[in-house]
């Protein structure tokens, strides 16, 4: 069984995603890192589904649906921001600064 290596890979991917979100300033890359985290979670769902039944696999479909919706909304926002500021650098997007 590949449960151990699967979960390890999932964790590595997730941490990569978190690190990317935290470190990168390009909104597209950050977005991709978010997708990476979602897929890392999907991987652990699938891996654990073998132990706990199919509900984990079904959950993956939900996550993918949400991710698709999120991609549509998120990319639209990024596009709108780019049209507005000619940049996708997150450091410049701080209108809600307190």
């Amino acid at each position: 069984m590949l449960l151990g290596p699967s979960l390890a890979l999932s964790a590595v991917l997730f941490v990569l995603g978190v690190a990317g979100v935290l470190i990168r300033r390009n909104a597209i890359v950050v977005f991709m890192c978010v997708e990476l985290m979602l897929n890392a979670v999907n991987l652990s769902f699938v891996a654990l589904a073998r132990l706990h039944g199919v509900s984990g696999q079904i959950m993956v479909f939900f996550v993918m649906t949400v991710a698709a919706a999120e991609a549509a909304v998120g990319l639209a926002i990024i596009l709108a921001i780019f049209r507005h500021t000619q940049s996708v650098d997150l450091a410049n997007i701080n209108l809600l600064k307190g």
Partner: protein
Amino acid sequence: MIQLVWLAVLLPLIGAVLNGILAIRRPGAKTAVSVIGVGTLLGSFGVAVGTFTELLHAPVASFRVLLWQWLPVSDRFSVDLAFQVDHLSAVMLLVITGVGGLIHLFSVGYMRSDPGYARYFAYLNLFIVFMLVLVLGASLPVSYIGWEGVGLCSYLLIGFWYEVDTNSDAGKKAFLANRIGDFGVLIAMFLLWWSLGTLEYTGITMRAGAEFSIGSTMPLLIALFLFLGCTGKSAQIPLYVWLPDAMAGPTPVSALIHAATMVTAGVFLVVRTAAIFTLAPVALEVVAIVGALTAFFAASIGLRQYDIKKVLAYSTVSQLGYMFLGVGTGAFASGIFHLITHAFFKALLFLGAGSVIHSMHHALHHARSHADAQDMRNMGGLRRWMPWTFALMLLATLAIAGVPPFAGFFSKDEILAAAFARGTEQPIYLVCWALGLVAALMTAFYMARLVAMTFLGKYRGGDMSAAHLHEAPLMMTAPLVVLGALAVAGGLINLPHFAGGHAWLEHWLEPVTEVAAMVMKPLPELARSQEALLILLAITAAVAGLIGGYVLTSRTVIATPEHAAPERGLWRVLYHKFYVDELYQLVFVNPVMWVSRTALWQTVDAFLIDRIGVGGTARVAEGLGWLGSRLQNGQVAFYVAMFAVGAVLILRTLVR
């Protein structure tokens, strides 16, 4: 009629209420107001006469008229709303309703053209109500209702023309000065209750002798606190300053409240509580000394005033001093005697001054002159136009100066004789007597000056206004004539033995003062020669003062106020009333203002409460908000980091 004495109070009360309603609804209904105002007083006077005549033939000297239980607090403390009708209150009842009625009548003429006519009569009637409650009350709390009430009416009437700031200021000054005194009466009541367990006058008189020994501390404290109240209400040193300012009110008010009745309440109170005062010889000495000093200083200030009402005001303060000198000597009946005669001649003087002012005001108004209608430097020679007023004022002047056989002579002489007699044993009273004698001289002087400046010589108000001078209408002169008769004959009620009388008032008041007389050492008998010498001295002082005042005034050229040279030397000090108002301003008013402004307002209110309290809370909230806002730095990465840290921390607690 004695059991119906409450009618005397109720009638003016109804008058006050009706006139008050009219003042709001129909201020123009002056005839109705006059009928109600004067009519209720007339009824009240009728009740007073009825009560008095019944008392003349009554088997007992004192009646208690219970109206209702007022404060039934416990078995040990209850106060009834009850009236005490005895020889003292009956006499006061007559004086108040009688003189009050005459002054009401005079007011009908004097205030006729005033827009506040109805309001004026409502206040005046209300004053009579409270004054009667004061003298009729059977206990201190009941009298205190009246005591406070007359203060209120005095305040309302001083500030009657409240559109002018100085008038309402004078009202406030009177009220505040009276409050200081009222505090004394309140403390005295607490002490009396604490030590004697009663506040009824009869109870106080009965128990005081048994509970207190002569010269002990408690009666001294009570007497001094009571006397503090008297200095406020009766305008004695140190609280006399309000009375001269009180002349801002309409002149009949000055006559009724600030000369004849209210200001004598202090003398009345001392006589009512004589049992306490006689147990504290020191307090009696204080009363006599304060009275004598007041008589002296007020008379000296009166020497150099130009406002006709101010002269009379200081004269009133001075005469009240005489009354206190009398009661302080233990000659309670003499004090009351002077109170009565003073009510007659001082009311007459004020009403006479009122008709002079009325006429002057009218004349100056027609001449479009803005000269002061009360300043005697603008008057002069008025006897040509106002013969009746002149004649009556002259009578009153002779009476107040103490020329025999007018009323003031007998009462003043009695007080001075009593002080002298007491002085043969206690030298301090000799000083009082001397002060009183000099004050008598000055009284005659300033009164002669007043008459000379007002009625004699040449008119100084200008020819334009001279054409409009006129005698007062009958409605105003009639009360003057009655008062004139009383001022002449008032001395008869207590005609001393040497003048062929029977000292009626003194015997009449004996039931009231007998308990006090038992405690007091009787006045030493004076030899006939001493008595004659004293009388001679008093008459000399009066005549010398009158002649001196007349000669000095008629010799000097009197300049109208705008051309007057500044006062010099002692005259200047007298003109400025010994700078007492300025002194009080410096010693009392300014520190209070400083404490209120700097300490209370700027430090406590503006700094501590506003800036630290209210502003401080806002600052704390603002600071916390600022701290929170630092988290919202707009950097998505930072938010995510916080989120990640938070998620890790939560996971740590969930997954153990």
